[in-house]
């Protein structure tokens, strides 16, 4: 039984001793910072994971031997009941170079010096080329969403001339598979660059395969007009007659077909989507050659929706076995997490470190409570003797200080939780106000191409943090309470 004097006296001590407000402030700050920082970080992590997920197919069959044919694999992969669709992929490196605008013509490129791209360093023309089949790729990745998102992102960067790529909207599948721009668009570009073209636009048929670049290449390409001519060059090694390495370079004129944006920074920065047939041709596999095969480096796979982790794992295993049997060699079958494991692990580790730092803040707050309560016990030495003299039990005397810790922890946790919840709820408004007032931004959301600061705060987490803070306050209050309870009454009464 806790005697009535314990909470009674604890409340009077707290109300009459402003120093205890330091403890309340400490807990409030710790809870508030934990909720706000973790709310933002969890929001970022959730958003970044969604971005990574958006840029990655469900499963990727990769590490395939050189010259693997897609058609051979497609049949065995698609035979698995867990597979919904497949699409071929061919990865290679290349250099992009937009053609310089002819003298005297109004340049169709844009100046980017007015835009804050200080964090972009893609000035070289090097790019990772991802050869995709534009007819199959939308079945395994949300290509349409990528194109929509690029417009949002570019508009957010004040590039209002940006339009959604139209190369996937051509009703003719043959033209769409080469990402061709509209005939009049290419004809118009040929006119500007004074390149061969028929007299009349009606007589022209587009020939330049299109490419869709990650929007972060905007600074190096400086392109916004779809159809703009770009030269793509690739190189491969060959063995010369004397046995030495020989570099074969190939070059092809292409048309800029617009930007995509997944918001996965690395992907948007490095990748350029090109028609897989064009890339095969560049690599020496002539489409007209009967002996040429439809080579792939990877096969992107869309799985049936709603698969459990166990079902997905089993399906991956089956696909690996089937593909290995077909190609007579080992391969890797990895899901979207495994494809980005290093990145996701790094984020998870940052999250853990952040939580640890915030936990340390909580410990500091607990130490503040301990210090103030310990100081109170020393200052209240004589009161402890008085309480013992008028019949207070040791437990009751200790409970006075436990109640103090409990009240400090509870009040701090409640205020911190409410403030934390409100701060997270109105974070974007606060950030906008701060930006308007000071010109500075509390959270650089443009780093992650986010229209708003993503926040994610669950009520259960708020309750956990608040209860944790109260429990911690209670634990640290036990030490001074124990000291008070063990004090000899006579020693306490004679304390000066």
């Amino acid at each position: 039984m806790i005697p009535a004097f314990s909470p009674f006296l604890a409340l009077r001590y707290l109300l009459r001793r402003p120093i205890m407000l330091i403890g309340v402030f400490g807990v409030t700050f710790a809870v508030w910072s934990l909720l706000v920082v973790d709310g933002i970080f969890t929001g970022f992590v959730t958003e970044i994971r969604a971005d990574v997920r958006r840029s990655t197919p469900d499963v990727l069959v990769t590490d395939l031997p050189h010259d693997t044919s897609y058609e051979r694999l497609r049949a065995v992969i698609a035979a698995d009941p867990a597979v919904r669709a497949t699409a071929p992929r061919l990865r290679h490196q290349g250099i992009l170079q937009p053609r310089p605008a002819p003298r005297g013509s109004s340049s169709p490129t844009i100046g980017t010096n007015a835009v804050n791209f200080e964090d972009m360093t893609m000035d070289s023309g090097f790019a990772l080329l991802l050869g995709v089949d534009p007819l199959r790729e939308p079945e395994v990745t949300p290509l349409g969403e990528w194109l929509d998102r690029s417009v949002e992102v570019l508009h957010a960067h004040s590039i209002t001339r940006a339009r959604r790529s139209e190369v996937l909207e051509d009703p003719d599948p043959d033209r769409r598979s080469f990402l061709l721009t509209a005939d009049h668009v290419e004809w118009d570009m040929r006119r500007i660059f004074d390149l061969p073209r028929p007299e009349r636009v009606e007589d022209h048929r587009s020939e330049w395969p299109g490419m869709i670049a990650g929007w972060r290449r905007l600074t190096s390409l400086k392109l916004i007009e779809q159809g703009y001519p770009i030269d793509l060059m690739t190189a491969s090694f060959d063995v010369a007659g004397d046995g030495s390495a020989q570099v074969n370079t190939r070059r092809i004129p292409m048309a800029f077909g617009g930007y995509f944006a997944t918001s996965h920074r690395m992907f948007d920065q490095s990748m350029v989507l090109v028609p897989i047939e064009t890339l095969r041709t560049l690599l020496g596999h002539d489409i007209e050659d009967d002996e040429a095969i439809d080579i792939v480096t990877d096969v992107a796979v869309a799985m049936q929706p709603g698969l459990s982790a166990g079902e997905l794992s089993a399906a991956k295993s089956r696909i690996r076995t089937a593909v290995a049997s077909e190609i007579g060699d080992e391969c890797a079958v990895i899901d979207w997490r495994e494809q980005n494991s290093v990145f996701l692990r790094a984020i998870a580790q940052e999250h853990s470190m952040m939580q640890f730092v915030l936990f340390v803040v909580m410990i500091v707050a607990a130490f503040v409570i301990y210090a103030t309560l310990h100081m109170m016990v020393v200052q209240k030495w004589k009161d402890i003797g008085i309480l013992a003299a008028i019949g207070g039990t040791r437990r009751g005397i200790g409970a006075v200080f436990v109640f103090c810790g409990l009240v400090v922890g509870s009040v701090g946790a409640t205020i911190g939780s409410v403030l934390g919840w409100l701060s997270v709820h109105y974070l974007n408004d606060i950030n906008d106000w701060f930006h308007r007032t000071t010109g500075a931004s509390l959270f650089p959301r443009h780093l992650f191409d986010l229209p708003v600061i993503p926040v994610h705060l669950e009520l259960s987490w708020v309750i956990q943090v608040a209860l944790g803070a109260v429990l911690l306050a209670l634990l640290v209050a036990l030490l001074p309470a124990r000291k008070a309870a063990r004090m000899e009454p006579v020693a306490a009464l004679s304390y000066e």
Partner: protein
Amino acid sequence: MTSPVLTARCVHKSYRLGKTEIPVLRGVDLEVQSGEIVALLGASGAGKSTLLHVLGLLDPPSEGEILYDGRSVHGLSIRERARLRHDHTGFVFQFYHLIPELTALQNVLLAGMMTDSVLRYWSRRQEAKKAATALLERVGLGDRLKHRPAELSGGERQRVAIARALLAEPRVILADEPTGNLDSNTAEGVIELMFELQRERDAAFVLVTHDEGLAVRANRIIRLRDGVVVG
């Protein structure tokens, strides 16, 4: 014949200072009857306050035993001793020992909260408040209920302490130099009040003092010298 309310049998008390054992009480025998006023008289260092603390169960004797109403308190748990201290004795100290954060009324009320749980006290809080107010009015502080100790004079503080000691209606009041910190006029008023209350309630009174003038007003004087009863 009824048992004495308070008995000390061959009480020894010594303190250790480093490796040295310092005897303070050396075989004190004492009996206090109900309604009796006993003055413990002695010079500074004679062991008066130590004996009072031992009698009030604030400090255990090194040897000997204490009996309340003829029953030995030896072997009682810390909790039982606290309960007994609350029910059986009331303390009045030289330096009042009020809790500075509480008003006069709250200081007195506090003594009534020692043995009740929160719920039990809540259910009888009005009754407790009435009793504490009546006691403060009885000691002449009816208009000082909401004053804190810092806002009261020395005499007023001691009156609050007396009211606090009486709230649980103890059998014995243990007063350690209750007027030692007061001027003579105030001291006289406080002593008069204590004796009046003692008569009203028929409580035993053990008064520690080194003031011969005050001691002679007691029913009995016990003289202590170097921890031994000398008369």
